[in-house]
């Protein structure tokens, strides 16, 4: 599924929840289902800066496509990074670099996706694009 389609799918799901609390609960469920992150990789190299909690995002390349593993020590942030990782996984570096979807505009996720200066979500997306860009140019 293309990045845009995945975003629209998630948007549909998130729109089903009428308020921030239920949206957060959905993210918590996503976080609880995401259990495959290797303990030893919870290190500074893969840490996303600017998050209130610790967030890790690890890119991997397989068959010319990019996959992301993600984790956080906070549940709501972990749910968010799980969702973002799933949107950009199984995609080519070109598709990631070329996608110009504004998640902050698409998803109404209250304060966790607000365009604040020290926004962790912004840094998660930047890390994904930077990695894809690096792969594209090699």
């Amino acid at each position, binding site marked *: 599924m293309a990045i845009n389609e995945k975003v629209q799918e998630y948007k549909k799901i998130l729109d089903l929840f009428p308020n921030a609390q239920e949206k957060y609960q959905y993210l918590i469920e996503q976080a609880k289902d995401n259990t495959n992150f290797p303990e030893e990789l919870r290190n500074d190299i893969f840490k996303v800066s600017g998050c*209130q909690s610790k967030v890790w995002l690890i890119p991997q390349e397989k068959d010319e496509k990019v996959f992301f593993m993600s984790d956080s020590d906070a549940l709501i942030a972990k749910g968010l990074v799980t969702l973002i990782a799933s949107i950009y996984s199984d995609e080519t570096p070109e598709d990631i670099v070329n996608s110009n979807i504004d998640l902050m505009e698409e998803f109404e996720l209250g304060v966790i996706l607000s365009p604040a200066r020290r926004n962790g979500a912004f840094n998660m997306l930047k890390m994904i694009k930077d990695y894809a860009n690096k792969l594209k140019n090699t």
Partner: protein
Amino acid sequence: MSEFENIKKDFPIFEREVNSKKLTYLDSGATSQKPQSVIDAMNNVYTNTNANVHRGTYVLSAETTQLYESVRSKCKNFLNAYHSDEIIFTKGATEGFNLLANSISKKFLQPGDEILLTEIEHHANIIPWQMVAKQYKLVIKYITINKNFSIDLDDLKQKISSKTKVVSITGESNLSGLLPDVKLIRSIVKENSDALFILDGAQLVPHRKVDVQELGIDFIIFSGHKLLGPTGIGVVWGRLDLLNELEPVSGGGDMIEEVYYDRATWAAVPHKFEAGTPPYVEAIGLGAAIDYLENITMEKVSQHSDMLRKYAQDIFYDLDRVNVIHTNEKFAGCTFSMHIDEIHAADISLMLDTYGVAVRAGHHCVQPFHRKLGIDATFRATGYIYNDKNDLDVFKDALMSSIEMLG
């Protein structure tokens, strides 16, 4: 009727809802809400009298200058200072610390001199000292904090010596609510050194009557925005003889007496420390905030804080999984930092927000002490004059539901 019964009506922000819930604001330790009178005072300047201060020989400038300079006398009375000229306006408490650290080091300190802080200082009372310590080869020492989050006086006695030239400590901890016994600490410092004594009043001044003469301190720093006033304004009070000796650290307009192409002489205290156009509208807002508090009286403000604190202790202590970082000293501020077993503070504060409850999550600019406690982050509730028992009940219910949801 108590002064506090309908007090929320004076603060327009409490008319709004957050996430379809009534706002329960418990983050006054970060910044306070503003009464209408403060907003009106600032509006009045921009609407009716605005002109740059100390400059123009025309009515508007004279009126604005008068309003601005009258706040100095308000601050002088508020702190029971000796003289209005001892009040220096800064853009905030942080700038105040940077001003004092730089000016004191430049004038009074030699390589090897020691600066004594405590382990629970706000970063604003650590970083400026670290910066000057590097520049002037000074040594920083930290007084240990006891298990009940109070200052270890034995450790203070051990660390203070004739080498100690500056002691700078918090008047009220922004983490545990501790109100150190300033007079006692001051007397220990005086007996063992000739150090200058600086009090961080950022959390203390909004909540308690501070009498600088009675405390016998040399400097106190506070910000306007934690005291019902606007952002962009802070105060450094210092003893006049010391301020006269200290050199300015920022140069520019308004702080000069005579300027030549190769040199300049400084204006008298306090203006020599206030380079450039001062934040006069913000200062006038601060004046209105002080009027508002003095109208209630600081005695009643502190009684209200004590009442809220005791109620919070009743309802938050002994809750399952809830760890409260709060001093168990008899007197303390209404500041409660907490962490929940197995749940991140950021999750708690996001969940509380969905109930309209605003608390702060993070290290609250006290990172080294969080590290010492072995905790990444806490969430912190602070009460102020517009909070009541109901706010704490709403917070507690929201906290219990949040814990349940976060598992």
